[in-house]
């Protein structure tokens, strides 16, 4: 098939295509999860795969994350490259032993004799009134655990390239996609989450952040949905002559501290934006990464914007009040820039 570089894919189609690319060339890759086969994944990440690869390789499972995430760890250690979908990241509780104590540790506990090439694909994020057990991002919960890698794409191009790297990696990878970026007809998605995506397989290395907007006055470090909110803020600020640099982390583990530091050393101002809970999270880790290396690069105190330390409300006004957004980001950047002059 000819390469169609002008084709625009949603993030959901890009993820499914990345999986399909790898499944065509590697017979050890297969997918398991709830409603991932006949339905195509409730957030579209496995659309079309059953028709091409059949029910031996695209497997609907019973509603037991304990069983099928555990089975994924075992299959990975036995030589397969499974992708298991944890439908909502919020459902991690019943399979956390398989994730924290088996997937994350078995490479180490076997003295490196076993690989665990498992991808756990999971949907994150709120903003659509689905309440506290269906709206979390939980980035830090997984990035905290040694032995797990964590990929968090913000757009279709990155989503495909990071999925391919995740499948090829010999360590377990949490692949966390935000529901609101998938481009589903029934959930609003930022226009720029859908991008041009090449047909062929390509890999984006885990551990490389991307400067998605160069600027000189302040650095916003962010990920996932908040990349889009930060870009909206940056466009607003540009009208007032404030030139913001936006760094999309793309992966949390490995964490590209070098790109973050380089940007902050240039701008002297740091604002970290995350949809996960505020305390003990990504925002603290990013700020610490900079001040541990050299606090004198900062002209003003660093700032963080994240979800307050409360369960996510169902009520739309309450949830929207609590979420970081372009207005809050704009205000935080303005305060930083004002103080540093």
């Amino acid at each position, binding site marked *: 098939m000819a390469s*169609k570089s*002008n*084709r*625009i894919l*949603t993030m959901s189609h890009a993820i499914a295509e990345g999986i399909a690319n790898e499944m065509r060339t590697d017979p050890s890759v297969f997918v398991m999860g709830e409603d991932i086969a006949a339905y195509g994944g409730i957030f579209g990440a496995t*659309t079309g795969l059953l028709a091409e690869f059949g029910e031996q390789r695209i497997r609907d499972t019973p509603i037991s994350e304990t069983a099928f995430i555990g089975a994924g760890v075992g299959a990975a250690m036995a030589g397969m490259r499974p992708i298991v979908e944890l439908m909502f990241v919020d459902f991690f509780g019943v399979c956390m032993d398989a994730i924290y104590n088996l997937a994350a540790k078995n490479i180490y506990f076997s003295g490196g004799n076993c690989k665990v090439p498992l991808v756990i694909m999971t949907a994150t994020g709120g903003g659509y009134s689905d309440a506290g057990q269906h709206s979390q991002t939980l980035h830090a919960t997984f990035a905290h655990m040694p032995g797990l890698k964590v990929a968090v794409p913000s757009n279709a191009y990155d989503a495909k390239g990071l999925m391919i790297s995740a499948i090829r990696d010999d360590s377990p990878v949490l692949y966390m996609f935000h529901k609101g970026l998938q*481009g589903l*007809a*029934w959930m609003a998605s930022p226009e720029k989450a*859908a991008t041009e995506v090449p047909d062929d397989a390509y890999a984006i290395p885990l551990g490389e952040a991307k400067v998605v907007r160069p600027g000189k006055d302040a650095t916003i470090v962010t990920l996932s949905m908040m990349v889009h909110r930060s870009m909206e803020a940056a466009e607003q600020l540009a009208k007032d002559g404030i030139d913001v640099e936006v760094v999309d982390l793309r992966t949390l583990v490995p964490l590209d501290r070098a790109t973050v530091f380089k940007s902050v050393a240039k701008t002297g101002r740091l604002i970290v934006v995350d949809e996960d809970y505020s305390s003990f999270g990504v925002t603290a880790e990013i700020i610490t990464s900079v001040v541990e290396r050299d606090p004198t690069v900062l002209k003003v105190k660093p700032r963080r914007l994240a979800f307050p330390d409360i369960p996510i409300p169902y009520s739309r006004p309450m949830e929207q009040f609590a979420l970081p957004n372009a207005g809050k980001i704009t205000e935080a950047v303005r305060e930083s820039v004002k103080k540093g002059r």
Partner: protein
Amino acid sequence: MILSDIAVPEGLWDTSKTPEGVVANWFYRDGSTVEAGAKIAELMVEKTVFDIAAPAAGELHILVPKDGIVRPGTLIGRIDGA
């Protein structure tokens, strides 16, 4: 100039239950060159997705944008094959 219509196929879904659907996504920008048979759009009716393929090769002209409402027979775009 050969213009090919891109219409929502008649009988694609049961309109007695659900009269309308929406254009969920266009996979090419207006004015892009597309190949015959390429998946160019998807429609969503309730939670069911229907793919729309290019009827010919040529330049795509979008008539119903993303999120626009459609019924069977609706002309959603044209392909200029000249």
